């Protein structure tokens, strides 16, 4: 095997943080592809430019995604990366593994690929980094026969992903792992066979901490919340008071200013609490949500290309999230249907909503306008009215004339 | 260029646009100074002279101001013709 001289990236083996270069070298010891990847990267570092080409059309029979084609312009110089495709495997909910399962994944990958991985890709997949076109079918057969399917890519549903939720967190308002598994199974067809205008991502967080960053990078963000009061254990509050300035750290930082603490008792005006989770996270032994649990559905977040980054918008303020998740699945189907009808190629759902207006979207999916959906009402006077709207206002006015009472 | 000559050019410029394009004062100054090579401030002065005596007039329509050749009605109202 060729030994590359890699002074620039060698420098990145120094220092306390674990080194990706060391990882590449480990793989390169007995893998041509990884070895050439190392030389190829040193070349990039020395010239300050990348040499990868656009992905071509590679994949496994019958699927439209799960493999990202990648070729190098320097295939002559570094034959091991002339083809260097990525395979995405759909991770288990919550990124839990047993050593047995992981070793199995490694065995197959060592057999067919570069021995390099990302644990995990940014969407959530297990990313197997670098293989050749002619190995793809074998890779798929090996993995799928052992229970591992590919993840999403292209204009399709992307691999759903979630926070650790009820598996290890006291704040989960619904079962993020189960929902993610259920949706992934329900929509296998949409995940593997690209029929959308562009990608669609789903991420599930159990509470407002949003540990899977759903609000910023999911076309559908499912964020757990609750309806009841925050229960207070005053004895535990006393314990916290020993090490914490409760007024400075909690009461004054409450965004709705609905708390008070007189040095003895902590009080919450629950009607005005917006469930931001700050107090709960800082006093987890003393404070606990109660009552009905469910999620807020937000739609539309994405990266900046084309119209600038979007954060997801509240569409359904509260929805029950319980197996078999029928209501949520129906909602997803309705959303896709409207999106499909209205999107131009490469338009994400958020972009289409912005283009067509929230009303068109909400009416199509059967959701009422609610002030919970907005931060503030419109500022400009350029309202649309349908003839039915005006007729309804006039009917209301006629009614008011009769009853003598206004309903604004 | 003589003031009167310049004013004639301005008038011709306005006449050419009549019924086709509403001219803003800026359009006239720019157009005439480019066509005649006269400095913009001279054209402006000449134009001002014409407007002051009703050879041309400011008009307002379509939400914006423009410069036009006055109608007879206007000239009559201003006592500039009988």
């Amino acid at each position: 095997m060729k030994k590359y001289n890699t002074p620039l990236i060698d420098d990145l083996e120094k220092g306390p943080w674990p080194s990706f270069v060391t990882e590449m070298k480990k793989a390169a010891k007995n893998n041509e592809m990884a070895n050439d990847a190392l030389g190829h990267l040193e070349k990039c570092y020395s010239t300050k430019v990348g040499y990868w080409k656009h992905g071509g059309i590679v994949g496994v029979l019958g699927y439209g995604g799960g493999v990202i084609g990648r070729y190098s312009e320097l295939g002559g110089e570094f034959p091991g990366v002339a083809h260097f495709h990525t395979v995405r495997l759909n991770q288990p909910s919550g990124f839990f593994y047993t050593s047995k399962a992981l070793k199995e994944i490694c065995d197959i990958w060592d057999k067919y690929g570069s021995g390099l991985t990302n644990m995990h890709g940014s969407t959530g997949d297990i990313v197997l980094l670098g293989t050749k076109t002619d190995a793809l079918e074998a890779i798929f057969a090996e993995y799928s026969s052992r229970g591992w399917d590919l993840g999403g890519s292209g204009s399709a549903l992307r691999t759903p992903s979630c926070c650790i939720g009820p598996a290890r967190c006291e704040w989960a308002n619904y079962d993020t792992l189960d929902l993610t598994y259920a949706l992934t199974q329900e929509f296998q067809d949409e995940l593997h066979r690209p029929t959308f205008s562009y990608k669609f991502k789903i991420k599930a967080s159990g509470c407002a901490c949003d540990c899977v960053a759903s609000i910023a990078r999911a076309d559908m963000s499912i964020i757990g919340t609750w309806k009841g009061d925050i229960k207070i254990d005053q004895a535990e509050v006393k314990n916290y008071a020993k090490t914490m300035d409760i007024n400075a750290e909690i009461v004054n930082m409450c965004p709705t200013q609905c708390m008070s603490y007189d040095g003895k008792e902590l009080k919450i005006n629950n009607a005005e609490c917006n469930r931001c989770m700050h107090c709960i996270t800082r006093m987890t032994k003393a404070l606990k949500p109660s009552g009905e649990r469910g999620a807020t559905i937000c739609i539309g977040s994405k990266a900046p290309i084309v119209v600038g980054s979007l954060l997801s918008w509240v569409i359904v303020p509260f929805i029950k999230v319980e197996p078999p998740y029928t209501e949520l699945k129906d909602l997803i189907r309705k959303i896709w249907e409207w999106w499909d009808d209205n999107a131009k190629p490469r338009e994400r759902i958020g972009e289409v909503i912005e283009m067509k207006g929230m009303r068109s979207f909400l009416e199509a999916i059967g959701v009422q306008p609610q002030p919970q959906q907005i931060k503030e009402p419109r500022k400009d006077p350029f309202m649309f009215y349908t003839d039915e709207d005006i007729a309804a206002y006039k009917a209301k006015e006629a009614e008011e004339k009769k009853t003598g009472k206004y309903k604004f | 260029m003589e003031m009167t000559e310049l004013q004639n050019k301005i008038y011709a410029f306005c006449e050419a646009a009549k019924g086709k394009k509403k001219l803003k004062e800026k359009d006239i100054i720019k157009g005439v100074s480019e066509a005649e090579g006269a400095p913009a401030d001279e054209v402006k002065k000449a134009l001002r002279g014409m407007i002051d005596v009703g050879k041309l007039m400011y008009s307002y329509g379509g939400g914006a101001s423009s410069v036009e050749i006055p109608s007879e009605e206007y000239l009559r109202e201003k006592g500039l013709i009988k």
Partner: protein
Amino acid sequence: MALPQRKTDIGPPHYKQFLPPVIQKNYGKWKYHEVLTPGTMVHVAESGDKLWTVRVASPRLLSTETIREQCDIAEKYCDGHLRYTTRNNVEFLVSDEKKLESLKKELKDRGFKMGGIGPHITNVVHTQGWVHCHGACTDASGLVKAMMDELYDYFETKKLPNKVRLAVACCVNMCGAVHCSDIAVVAVHTKVPTIVHEKFKNMCELPTVIGSCPTRAISPDPAQKSVKINAEKCMYCGNCFTVCPPINIKDPERDGVAIVVGGKINSLRTNPKFSKLVIPYISNEPPRWPKVVAAIKHIVEVYAKNAKKHERIGEWIERIGWERFFSLTGIDFTFQSIDDFTFMRDTMRTSATFKW
């Protein structure tokens, strides 16, 4: 009779000649002021001199007869000095404390109304409406009169947490700072305009008309030598009508008003704010627009009951959240309140934190 010689470019008269002597003397040297009653205040200069102001309500639309009456009063008590405010009230400027009470008495006897200083409702910014404008979807003066009759106590006596600035826009041109008012009435058309195609060519400029439309609803109609309007995209702003008379947008049954709240001009405590739409449509009901008036009064009362001292309506709402404003007032939340124009992206909620 020969006319005097006209002068051009003289600009306005110099203000100094109109200032009362006490102002000329203490100009720029005022130390503090005190509000004595909702209709009177006193400014005290560093020199110790004092200036009393009596503020009187005005319909803004004044006959010369009333102006003369105001002048007579000013001559009697203020050495002929008076001014108008930026919100169109009249202010009598008194330098001699002894004249203050008799001035107030005479004003009262003559039926003039004093008030509007401090945390009160003062005059309503409004413009022409049916009295003088071609674009109006409602009358401004009548609406203002109806509103202020109903809210009158807040002008003369009743305190509020802070000033409440009201305004009426008789069309979306919004001649006035209507878009940043605590509560404003905005009159709207609600029907796609019709076009008299025959007149288009002579009266309108094609590029101007096309460019006038905020939503790009207008495109050329070469066959008719005119334009056509995409009804899907038109939100009846009337700007095409402004630039092109053959476009007709007025409709007596469909024209009406919307109510916006929460705006603010000054920078005290919080930044200036635009007013936001809360009631999308109420029919025009001259002469007294009873539902419009009732809605405004209701909002003022809910505010008075719930806001902290010094909070303007918009500040109060931002503290409690718009969802709480809608639930406290019981106002229906409609699709129209969701921005679908420029700011949609910034006005949607992007977090799971809100109140039920």
